[in-house]
């Protein structure tokens, strides 16, 4: 049996502070290597929280989460940081590029955290940007790029370490449908080895994924392949 990439066992997330908000309620599912999964549901249904926990950015309040068979609760900050740097790539709705760095430097920065040696970072970042059609945009700062271009830089950055898991939270939320389609192309360009976990409102985007998890009020209500 091949090892599971992500496994949730009855994971709950409760945000405390004033009133309690149950963002996730006893969610269990797993993702295998190379799977392409879209999480859909209304705003506030818990999609983003699910992605944040799967991506180790957030810790669950209850339940157990495994990444590549290792339980997150047992990992040190250093080990979790290495997971983020080498095994997981993130793409966010609002692009989240480092504003003071050029497109090339943004990608190179991810390579630094992935442990790539200094003299290899720029060539590899250049190759990545070329692959996403951004060869002429390398020296541009984020504010000089269009939304679609920024998001493709972000995807290049997320795929820089060739991670087995790519997590994208509403990656097309701020883009028009046509640009959004090209961004989804980019997301799925990682080939068969990279599993993609995306949260989206868009039926068009969801239709490009082979498996759909539907969330409602913090619960996983359907899992259709």
């Amino acid at each position, binding site marked *: 049996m091949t090892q599971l990439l992500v496994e949730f066992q009855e994971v709950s997330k409760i945000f405390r502070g004033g009133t309690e908000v149950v963002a996730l309620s006893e969610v269990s599912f797993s993702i295998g290597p190379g799977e392409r999964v879209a999480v859909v549901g209304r705003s506030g249904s818990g999609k983003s929280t699910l992605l944040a926990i799967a991506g180790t950015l957030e810790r669950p309040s209850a339940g157990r989460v495994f990444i590549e068979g290792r339980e997150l609760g047992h990992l040190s900050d250093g080990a979790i940081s290495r997971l983020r740097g080498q095994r997981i790539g*993130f793409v966010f709705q609002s692009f989240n590029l*480092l504003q003071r760095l050029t497109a090339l430097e943004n990608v190179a920065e991810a390579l630094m955290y*992935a442990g790539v040696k200094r003299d290899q970072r720029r060539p590899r970042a250049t190759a990545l940007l070329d692959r996403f059609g951004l060869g002429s945009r390398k020296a541009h700062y984020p504010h000089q790029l269009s939304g679609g271009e920024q998001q493709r830089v972000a995807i290049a950055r997320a795929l820089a370490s060739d991670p087995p898991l790519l997590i994208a939270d509403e990656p097309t939320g701020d883009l028009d449908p046509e640009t959004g389609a090209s961004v989804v192309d980019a997301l799925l360009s990682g080939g068969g080895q990279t599993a993609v976990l995306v949260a989206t409102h868009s039926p068009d985007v969801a239709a490009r994924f082979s498996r759909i998890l539907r969330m409602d009020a913090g619960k996983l209500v359907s899992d259709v392949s």
Partner: protein
Amino acid sequence: MTLRDLLTRTFWALSVRPGRAILSGLGVAVGVGAIVGVLGVSATIQNGLLGQLNGLGDVLTVSGTSSSTGAASLMAPRSVAMIRRIPTVQAVAGTFTLPSSVQRTQFVPGQSGIPIVAFTGPIASATGTRVIAGEEISSRLGLPEAMLGYQAAQALGIGGAQLPTRVWVNNEYVTVVGILSPTPTQTSTEFSLFIPEAYARHSMGYGGSVDNISVRVPLSYASTVAGLLVPTIDPSGTLGLQVQEDSSVLLAAADAATAFQGLFLALSVVAVLVSGLGVMNTLLVAVVERRAEIGIRRALGATRAGIAAMFVSEAVMVALTGSVAGILLGLWVTIIGALHQRVAPDLPVPVALVGVGIALVVACLASLYPAARAASLPPSEALRMMA
């Protein structure tokens, strides 16, 4: 993330807001500059005063006042020879102040007030002076020749160009052949006419006792020798003799000149501590401003320690450049002070290094809290700020 990666990112971060970095660095510079300046100027003043003794050694002076008569105590002629036998003593001379004083010529009525002093031994080297004009004479000389102290020569209007010249001493002309240099502490040596003991004995009825003995010793043995002088000359203690050390006179002068050093130093250290608060404040603002960046870096794989290191490194960089600027400032103040005092500046290099150390420690401590706050930001929360 290597150290070089860290330093590069620190430079980026500082260059984004150069004004802020310069201002917090300036705070450190003022504090360190004050420490270096205060210590440098004090050391220069002390050095200038003590430097007058360095080449010559310390000069000890033995004299006393009789408790019964109130006159100067007389020490036996052999006292000079006894002191000469004390180890480490470099030169000894005894003097006796004769009752009459010098006149420029026999035609000027009245007395000049410059005493006539009979001397035994090498008077110039024993009093820490040297002959600045003319030549030195021996105390064994039986001829009517004399040397003048520096101030006495000026009072009589006798310079090097006039030598040799005659002065009227006790109904006789005596030829002045040499003038002595000023003394570090302006002792009575400067105000006297010195005539050889041998001449004083046969022409002025001098008996050979001395009322003042000057002893020159290396600075490091001064206090030891000072303790031996009175027991050597006057074991019974009946003469009421006292020893004065030139070095302690000079040290007292130096202490007076640097009396507020401790206070100023304390204020300078407070200034460095306050600059640490400035650094802390700047970093706390930066942590808030850079929440999004912190979140992105955490998502890209930065560890908590890596995030904290970015902020500590910024503080260290600011403190390092600030304290180097502060050292230059302090050295500049010291050199200005030294030029003003006409002495060689004593540049407090070890102190400067200590100043850098203090600034670095303060900056590290000041950065700990902001760095801890940055490191403990949950990545998901930091990223939410972007929306």
